């Protein structure tokens, strides 16, 4: 193994071993609050029946292993590296890689926490797919700006309004249609001059419509599984089927 990879690994081991140590200690402390001796639910309680037994065992082993890992990280120079790299930590936080990770998490969270619980699953999946595919597939910063913000902010608003029952599912569905129309229109404005981009844009649009169009009827009517939120589009499908 190259020395630099090893050092990098031991540096991250240094961080993780400390985090896991803290986690394990917290877990152990919490476990001590579980019933240890007193009878609970008609079961005679002694130390070996206690609900705390496995958590204590697991946290104990975790403390042991994280200490072994910490020792290894220190002897291999991981701690040294971590201290040396500490001033550069801020730079690492704003590295391209890390930013992309955050952005992808935002895409997933918007979809899962904002759209799915509150709006029609077809529409939610469609705008998620379009917003997620276009900037990455077409690899364009402009498109990222035009699609990510309406998607993320829209999802945030939908999440809040939906959670507190300010807006009905039907209203949210129309807002989602609005976001989709907005994204389609402004993305198209951005790329209409570029033939190659146009082909990719078309593929993105088709994918984001066809995927839910195949998936949802297959589950709803083929396998008879209800979907998270059934708004106007799924109700429409239901009316067509019956």
């Amino acid at each position, binding site marked *: 193994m190259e020395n630099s990879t090893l050092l990098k690994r031991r540096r991250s081991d240094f961080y993780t071993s400390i985090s896991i140590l803290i986690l394990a200690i917290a877990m152990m402390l919490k476990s001590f609050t579980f019933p240890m001796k007193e009878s609970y639910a008609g079961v005679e309680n002694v130390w070996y029946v206690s609900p705390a037994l496995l958590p204590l065992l697991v946290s104990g082993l975790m403390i042991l292993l994280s200490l072994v*890992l910490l020792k290894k990280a220190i002897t291999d120079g991981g701690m040294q590296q971590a201290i040396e790299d500490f001033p550069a930590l801020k730079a690492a936080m704003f590295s391209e890689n890390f930013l992309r990770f955050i952005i992808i998490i935002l895409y997933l969270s918007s979809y899962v926490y904002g759209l799915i619980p509150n709006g029609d699953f077809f529409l939610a999946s469609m705008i998620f797919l379009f917003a997620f595919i276009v900037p990455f597939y077409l690899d364009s910063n402009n498109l990222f700006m035009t699609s990510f913000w309406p998607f993320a902010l829209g999802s945030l608003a939908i999440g809040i309004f939906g959670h507190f029952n300010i807006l009905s599912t039907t209203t949210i569905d129309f807002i989602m249609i609005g976001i989709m129309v907005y994204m389609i229109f402004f993305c198209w404005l951005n790329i209409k001059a570029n033939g190659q981009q146009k082909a990719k844009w078309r593929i993105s649009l088709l994918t984001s419509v066809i995927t839910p169009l195949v998936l949802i009827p297959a589950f709803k009517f083929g396998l008879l599984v209800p979907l*998270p939120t059934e708004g106007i589009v799924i109700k429409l499908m239901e009316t067509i089927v019956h």
Partner: protein
Amino acid sequence: MAFFTNLGTFFQTIGGMLTDPYTVLLLLGSSFLGIIFGALPGLTATLGVALLTTLTYSMDLQTALIALISMYVGAVYGGSYPSILINIPGTAAAAATALDGYPMAQRGDGGKALGLTTTASFIGTVIGMIALIAFAPLIADAALQFTSYEFFLLAFFGIIISGTLTSDDLVYKGWIAGLLGLALSTIGRDQLQSYPRFTFGIPELEGGIEVVPVLIGAFAIPQIIKSMRDRLVLGKAQPIKRILPEFMTIVKNFKHIVRSALIGVGIGAVPGVGEDIAGWVSYGTTKNSHPHPENFGKGEPAGIIASETANNACIGGALIPLVTLGIPGSPPAVMLLGALMLHGLNPGPLVVITQPNFLYQLCAIMALASLAMWINGMFLTKHVIKVLRVPATVFLPIVTVLSVVGSYALGLSIFNLFLMVPVGIIAYLLGEMDYPISPLVIGVILGPMADENLRRALMISEGSLMGFIERPVSILLLLAILLTVCSQIPAWKRMTNQIKAKVFKRKAS
């Protein structure tokens, strides 16, 4: 004489099914659906059988069984597709397949890997079927010797072995991942006294953490993040030159196939333990007995063969206690039992008397289901490899939507989706720090079993630990665990090396 009559029933059933075009269509169709089901992340064999039970209710028993068994066999096999192609196991049973399958796909051998998987799964299913027909009562009796002691040790062994096998950095990082999984599994009401642990007042956590959102969060989300982040190419999609798999590879690994299949049957027959752990144990055993264990994890065909043979052989194993005693051996078999009861058949010791042909019909159906799986597999292999040509930036968003549906469908719970994202983020960060992820998932799967059985074992022995060393099976398991752990300790390694050196010296002189 009776044997020939039985064999007659077996072939009669096969003949009867093959001459009816509707049955053949149902067989191939259910098997195809099963493969798709297994291949979609989060959709498991259990859910597939459960959903198909509703759809096949109006059919007669034999027809319904054809659909259900084909679905079961197909779904267990189908989990290997995404394991190999995109490093996201479709089911927990196929997690061990990804270790060698994905490296093979990356170097352009994806077609070969899929071909091997197909044949290995086929052979595994058939060996499972033979075990079912030939040794059912014997194996059922042995499997029922498992008491709380053995269940605890088996669960612990499963976690240790997957931690040991998957660490490419320090081995205890794999164990830490396993322990993190165990820690997650203790969230919720405990199984024995229903005391709420680590629920932090969140009502949704009281029922505990479900496996499917953890499975998807831990495997699919890190892969989605990585591929989208780097705009990766999924793999090399080389045209497959031959449809039939390389029989030489199969012949060369015949020893591993037979051993893996036997492991699969044995683990399948133990109630409550299923395909997921069979794949790991078999992978570990094969790695340890292989002349080149260092090739494992780098695209060694024997690794794929080991896990895929075992998880399919598990099906026959799981049906053994089901047919003989009405005790299902694996989670999908639980649903299968429900389906049989819906159709007015109560599997159990009297089935031999009340429905003497049932066992042979079942085996005939299994034989055909595995054949249908093989045919479908050979056909699909050629096409499914083309997935690798789809740009990752288009394909992985689709995988995201599929993961969401898969995560939702089993429990119909939006909370599972909420759980999936943070698990995915933690799994991604751990992966970036070179921690393996599979032990975490195995820990969540086996955690409740370990917890419940450890405490109950001690409750029964009234706190004495002697129970663990008084029973033959538990001694074996205990030794296996100790050896696995010790073989990773440097001091132990030095010692065994010295002994080996001395022995060889003596031989030389």
